[in-house]
């Protein structure tokens, strides 16, 4: 069981990340948050301090700004002293219909959801590899999605980017495992967040809080791939195993 003491959260303003951050804060961890706006960082920092975080720092960060990514790990480690876990939680859920014929937008969505995430993962891996091995296994946890498990006409631009991230993480896990570095792929299903406020909620929706808690426990337990909530593992097992000749005829 790992108990991370200093955690960098990239995309800290996501509802899920905020809930995960609170679990770490209640344990008295040190946190470094990356989000787009300084005002967001301030209110989140106050919240995490109120919840018991030993130290909270913030970095203004734009996923689109690739030049910032190489400096991110150094910046965070100097703010917290060290980093023993990185949680990447940002993403953008594009309107498939509106962007499926627009190359610029597809590339842009891919940039946010895949390329820049892969860039942050790469920098995190380099950082962890450069650190002396200690008691705690360093952890790189990334929020991918069930949408990355199979391409569907309703959501394949998002799905392709998330799928790229999932496969990248598989390879990275394979490479870093011997060095004791833990790589966690998180695949949430529908989550009740501001992104989905307008949708009627059904039994498939999980709360951001439950998902946040599950992420932290998966980081503690060094799981490889977690579906959140767990029943998505079975749903996606079925979806992945439908023959393509049949799948292509479905309205999914």
């Amino acid at each position, binding site marked *: 069981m790992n108990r991370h003491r200093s955690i960098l959260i990239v995309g800290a*303003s996501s509802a899920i990340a905020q809930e995960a951050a609170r679990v770490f804060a209640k344990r008295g961890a040190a946190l470094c948050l990356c989000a787009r706006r300084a*005002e967001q960082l301030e209110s989140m920092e*106050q919240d995490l301090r109120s919840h018991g975080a030993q130290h909270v720092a913030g970095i203004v960060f734009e996923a689109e700004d690739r030049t910032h990514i190489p400096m991110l790990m150094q910046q965070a480690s100097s703010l917290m002293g060290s980093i023993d876990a990185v949680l990447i939680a940002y993403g953008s859920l594009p309107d498939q219909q509106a962007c499926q014929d627009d190359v610029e937008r597809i590339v842009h969505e891919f940039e946010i959801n895949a390329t820049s995430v892969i860039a942050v993962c790469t920098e995190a891996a380099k950082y962890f590899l450069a650190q002396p091995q200690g008691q705690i296994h360093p952890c790189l946890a990334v929020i991918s999605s069930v949408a990355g498990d199979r391409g569907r006409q309703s959501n394949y631009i998002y799905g392709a980017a998330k799928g790229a991230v999932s496969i990248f993480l598989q390879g990275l896990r394979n490479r870093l495992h011997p060095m004791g570095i833990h790589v966690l792929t998180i695949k949430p299903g529908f989550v009740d967040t*501001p992104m989905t*406020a307008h949708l009627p909620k059904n039994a498939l929706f999980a709360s951001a809080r439950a998902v946040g808690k599950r992420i932290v426990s998966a980081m503690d337990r060094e799981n490889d791939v977690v579906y959140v909530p767990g029943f998505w593992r079975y749903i996606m097992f079925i979806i992945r195993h439908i023959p393509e000749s049949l799948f292509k005829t479905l309205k999914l």
Partner: protein
Amino acid sequence: MITTLRSWGRTPQVHHADVRSMTWTDQTPDFRSIEGSVLPVGYRRSYGDSCLNENGTLIDCTAMHRILNVDEQQLVIRCEAGVRLDEILSLIVPRGLFLPVTPGTQMVSVGGAIANDVHGKNHHSAGSFGSHVICFELLRSDGSRILCSPTENPDWFSATIGGLGLTGIITWAEFRLIRIPSPYLLQHSIRFQHVDEYLEHSRESDKIYPYVVSWIDCSATGSRMGRGIFMGGSFVDAVQASSPDSDNNSRLVVPFDFPSFTMNKWTMRLASALYYHRQFRRESEHRVHYRPFFYPLDGIEQWNRAYGAQGFFQYQFVVPFESAKSTLHQVLANTAKHGKASFVSVLKNFGSIASPGMLSFPFEGVTLALDFRNEGSSTLKMMNELDAIVEHHGGRLYPAKDARMSASHFRKAYPQWLEFQKYIDPKFSSSFWRRVSS
């Protein structure tokens, strides 16, 4: 996106044009892009239609849920309006602090607690929630932000407390906390044989306990009319084995709508008799954790579904002490006559501490909360009869629990509505407000 939503009473069921989320306090929703009216909402625990806005837009404030500061010395908390009371409690109880006033559920937001000026078991000793609010920020649809406190913009402060979300969006608030010696209360329960016995003794007993509530058996009639159990409590030092404060406090879920026959007057009568006689002795005393004491129904998730798919009505009124006896007699006789069972029947005295809220519900007197399964026109007819009794005795109903009172009844009971109207944001409205003001 057309969204059909209900409130906690599950009646009415209402179409909304859109639900938008507000996540950050410094963000201003793009009001101009919204057609029709808006209403800010939290967890929609109001029973009737005060948290609904038919064909309009709801602004969901629950993502503004950050705690900004807890000052343990000054006993002050500052938080965003969407913070739910249980989140605050899980943070402050381990530090020996508690909410100054809490309603019967911890599943409501701070913004909602202010907008409905909620009250709790300590109204007789502490007043309503609004009495403990230090300040808050109000965002208007023109983008302006008003800092409201008893000294700064006091008229806006007063209009917004109990203002049903109509004056603007509360983005954050600061309010006082109290110290508690432990998370446990000593609860004293006393059976009373008749509602008159309650009226004779309760005001004296109120002086002994900071927290008081009584449950009454609405199915009992004649010499036992309004028999019940008086429960007084106060926080005490934790002695011996105090169980750890667990995070996981949901034990039961009502997973589906109960078939409509499960809660009828016979099952209700049986349940009420069992509950009354559960307490064998006339008096008893025991130590209870704050959760079952303050939030007995929060232990059963979605208990509102027990009333079946048609939903239910809450009926809560307050009448002055002078007319309490006559009102309670008439109300209890009337519900018995109609054979409408109410299991969750709560009786309490309100104290003399006036709330700063313009439209606040509580005033000094006796309040009774009943609930009735929605059986259509017969239920509505009975409630109209109850309205007449309440009106005749100078009482009024609680907007947060109402789905059906008439406009004329509301206006008579709340003459300050005219003054209040000046503070309503021109972009804001609710199903409740349109019903009672038109």
